[in-house]
């Protein structure tokens, strides 16, 4: 197959000398025997290099956690008290509140407000009882969502005072942001505590805002073939959906451009920090990266002549911090899924010669499984049709067709 030959061609060009294998690369150990714990980042090494991750230096991690912990708990208590107060107001003076937020004083509306009051008070009491647990704060977030939905309905009703409703919605949004922030911090602190006790998977407990993702796939090719293809970073955009281009600067350095949510792009320079042909490639972004990140890919022979097990670790500081990650998740841009999808496509390229496409999968987002009216821009001239660039004759002929 032509594509496969082309592939081999590009990968041969980049045979680079063995580079620096850092003793500090903790995952040179096989995946199975590796501690899936958190101890790992505390060993330091290139992966845990704090300058790539905003926030607290790692050394201060433990003592620092205690401090932010109590700070977050203070915030939680504040939110709990706020909830109790607002809830009480909703319960005993729903009429006054309805006027304040611009909603008509009808029985239905007042009953809804009273019910919301009960909910607020329940969350508030829960938080005050367990200010270290994120669950009750999350219940506030859920409540906020309900409030916003109700306000949206009120806004659409011509019986409401729309200016007042908008002001109320703005206030709720502000509180929602605080609730989310508080809940996520509490969640992270709980993870951190689990991490210290060694039970939490490292992947779930990145330090100071970083996100760690790990995925593995088995590719029916030798470790040498798989390594060679990956080692030429220019190949990566073929199967990494969010990567636009990688330019190789020299043996160690490269420049990466990726698309980010909402159509923007992010760029960074990266350097290879470990390179063991047929076994491992590790890289990290350099100072000034839009999204500080580091990654490693390991290649190990699969048992039973099944090719190569490819394990990718990616650690990065998402734009917008953990709130950014949460929002990205809401919009289906979850990084873990991205890496999994990228690996699926990597396997397709290695085994079949190209990324496998369906009528629906060539579109971003959902699309009916029917042929496209026109090929998306990025596929034009790249689909492998013999007729590329000219009209296919059969469809317009007398036989069949439209």
């Amino acid at each position, binding site marked *: *197959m*032509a*594509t496969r030959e082309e592939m081999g061609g590009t990968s041969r060009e980049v045979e680079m000398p063995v580079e620096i294998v850092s003793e500090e690369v903790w995952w040179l150990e096989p995946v199975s025997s590796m501690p899936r714990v958190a101890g790992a980042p505390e060993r330091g090494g290139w992966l845990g290099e704090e300058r790539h991750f905003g926030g607290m230096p790692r050394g201060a991690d433990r003592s620092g956690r205690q401090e932010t912990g109590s700070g977050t708990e203070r915030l939680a208590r504040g939110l709990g008290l706020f909830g109790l107060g607002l809830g009480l107001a909703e319960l005993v003076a729903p009429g006054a509140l309805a006027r304040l937020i611009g909603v008509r004083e009808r029985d239905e509306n007042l009953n809804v407000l009273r019910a919301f009051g009960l909910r607020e008070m329940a969350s508030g009491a829960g938080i005050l009882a367990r200010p270290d647990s994120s669950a009750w704060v999350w219940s506030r977030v859920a409540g906020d969502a309900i409030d916003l939905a109700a306000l949206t309905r009120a806004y659409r009703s011509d019986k409401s005072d729309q200016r007042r409703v908008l002001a109320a919605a703005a206030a709720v949004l502000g509180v929602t942001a605080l609730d989310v922030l508080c809940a996520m911090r509490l969640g992270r602190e709980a993870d951190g505590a689990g991490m210290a006790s060694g039970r939490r998977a490292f992947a779930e407990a990145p330090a100071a805002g970083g996100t760690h993702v790990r995925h593995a796939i*088995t590719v*029916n090719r030798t470790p040498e073939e798989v390594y060679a293809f990956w080692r030429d970073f220019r190949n990566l955009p073929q199967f990494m959906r969010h990567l636009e281009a990688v330019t190789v600067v020299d043996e160690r350095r490269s420049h990466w451009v990726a698309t980010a949510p909402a159509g923007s792009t992010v760029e960074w320079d990266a350097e290879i920090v470990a390179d063991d042909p047929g076994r491992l490639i590790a890289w990290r972004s350099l100072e000034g990266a839009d999204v500080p990140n580091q990654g490693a890919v390991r290649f190990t022979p699969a048992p039973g002549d*099944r*090719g190569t097990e490819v394990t990718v670790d990616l650690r990065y500081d998402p734009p917008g911090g953990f709130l950014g990650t949460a929002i990205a998740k809401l919009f289906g841009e979850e990084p873990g*899924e991205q890496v*999994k*999808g990228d690996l*699926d496509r990597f*396997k*397709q390229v290695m*085994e*079949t*010669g*190209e990324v*496998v*496409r*369906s*009528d*629906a*999968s*060539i579109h971003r987002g*959902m*699309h*009916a*499984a*029917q*042929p*496209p*009216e026109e*090929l998306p821009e990025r*596929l034009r001239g790249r*689909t*492998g*049709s*013999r*007729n590329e660039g000219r009209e*296919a004759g*059969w*469809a317009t002929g007398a*036989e*069949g*067709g*439209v």
Partner: protein
Amino acid sequence: MKATCWHGKNRVQVDQVPDPKILNSRDAIVRITSTAICGSDLHLYDGFVPTMEKGDVLGHEFMGEVVEVGRAVKNLRVGDRVVVPFPIACGDCSACRAEAYSLCENSNPNAWIAEKLWGHSPAGIFGYSHMLGGYAGGQAQYARVPFADVGPIKVDNGMPDEQVLFLSDIFPTGYMGAEMCNIQPGDVVAVWGAGPVGQFAMASARLLGAERVIAIDRFPYRLQIAREKAGAWETINYMEESVQERLRELTGGRGPDACIDAVGMEAHGHAATYAYDRAKQAMMLETDRPIALREAIMACRNGGTVSVIGVYGGFIDKFPMGSVMNRSLTIRTGQCHVQRYMRPLLEHIRRGEIDPSFVITHRARLDDAPEMYELFKHKQDDCLKVVLHN
């Protein structure tokens, strides 16, 4: 082109949609001459398969003439007449190398959705939900066939469409159902469901040496075809008699050596269990109604095999695991690895040992697809199998 599109529960329409295009270098475009409605299409029609979208082109049993090939397809030429297998398979991954084509590791671009529901993803399938790839199907004038260098099988012009069309799915599916029973001389095989797949399972069980085949269904006309065309020795109408008692009688108390479930997730049954499963399914407490499967397990002889080729989608309730474990039953199942069976089965047809067209009861035009779905669903006019010609 014209294509049969899904528009929601109990709604299909023949719409104008764009002509298919080559999307990968190993694709071919086929002008479809004959296509069929499969019993499993009724699961889509009835709304039991998740991840369907309005406008999805249906159909996974089709054949026709190659009109365009991608530049990496060396084995097919424009003008070749081909039958296309329903699972899409790359031929390169470990599963394909092991001839487990319906488990192809590369042909489902939406593998992540299937992984959420099933743990791991099987192969992509034409016209069968986004979870299984989001591929446009073959109840249309044209179809794009990925991995055309692996799947489609060329057929001589001498053999009519109706003789070879079912190599795409139901003949190999029934055959694999019988093959999984590891049939030995003297074996008695019971088949739940005398639909087209069940008929082929019965005929295949006979081809593979089963001494007696017993058909179980509720429609007399289907049981009659089983007796007259598929080689069934005895038939049981479960609306009229107890399946368990009758099977015991017919097998000297042992139970059948192998039981084939050719029914799947929308089984019908007697009042009580049927009402129970129907209600649970309606309340989303289980996705599938495993009435035939439970019965097959309970009926099977000690140490026997239960072969499941009826389609299941999700979760079932009251699965008699105690019966399976304590009585050393073997359960075998899978979407058919069609590519593995097409060549040998084409030989059977060529040698005149079987003529698969015996299941066809209705012939129509592509434009008639909506009426044909309705007719097939309600088993009107003694409908067993609908073929649509272009």
